[in-house]
């Protein structure tokens, strides 16, 4: 069971309180009704699913209820950072995954 730092509760909480919510930093196009099929495909269907550092959304669903973002290493399963929704990707230099 992972321990996840909730940026709103300002402490680590057990994974049981959280729900994963897909890849982060995919903004819904403001003009979504007008975008092309290709743009819609990129927005809705295509995900990067990298091996290594991934940016993903979590929701502290059984806690403060907030959605937030996390940088996690999919190889080591380590969280490198969590940050509030709407904040930019954090600088991860020097936070290399310990394996």
């Amino acid at each position, binding site marked *: 069971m992972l321990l996840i730092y909730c940026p709103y*509760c*300002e*402490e680590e909480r*057990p994974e049981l309180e959280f729900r994963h919510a897909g890849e982060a930093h995919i903004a819904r196009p403001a003009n979504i009704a007008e975008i092309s099929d290709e743009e819609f495909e990129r927005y809705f269907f295509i995900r990067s699913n990298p091996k290594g550092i991934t940016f993903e959304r979590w929701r502290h669903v*059984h806690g403060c*209820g907030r959605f937030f973002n996390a940088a996690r290493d999919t190889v080591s399963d380590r969280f490198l950072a969590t940050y509030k929704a709407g904040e930019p990707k954090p600088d991860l230099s020097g936070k290399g995954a310990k394996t």
Partner: protein
Amino acid sequence: MAEIARREPALEGRACQGQGISLSPAAPASRLSLRAPEASLAGLSQALSLDLPRRPKSSATKGPRAALWLGPDEWLVIDEEEADLAAICAAVPALHSAVDISHRNVGILVSGARAEEVLNSGCPQDLSSRAFPVGAASRTVFGKAEIVLWRTGEEAFRVECWRSFSDYVFSFLEAAARETS
């Protein structure tokens, strides 16, 4: 005019006493799910006569009334004397959402020297008084149910859960309370 219907609280008549542990349903109370931005807190606090807490995992209490921080824009307000909390907030012009959930939630009082460990049979949070001091409050899980946990004393907690989960939560607590170690 119709007769006033009889109230039938969940967990009516349930109780459990054991070595170092006592479980009982809390008396009916009025409850409010309050959502509001920072700017509205002063006005709402004034109307509710208590300072809505802004620190995570904390609560504020005044007399029979308490406000539990659940999220950065969310509070659970409980009034044990069943004051009309929705009406109180309705008079506040500042932006907010106040929804009556008096009957949605059921309160369970867990107390005794073993309260912490009985709760830890299903709640994964660190409940030591260092991590979860008196006054701490948090939404969390208990087994397969969501609860709000509030430490009201060194050896006393209040569990709030949704009505239809109360049988599960109470029965689980009973099972853990009955356990001799």
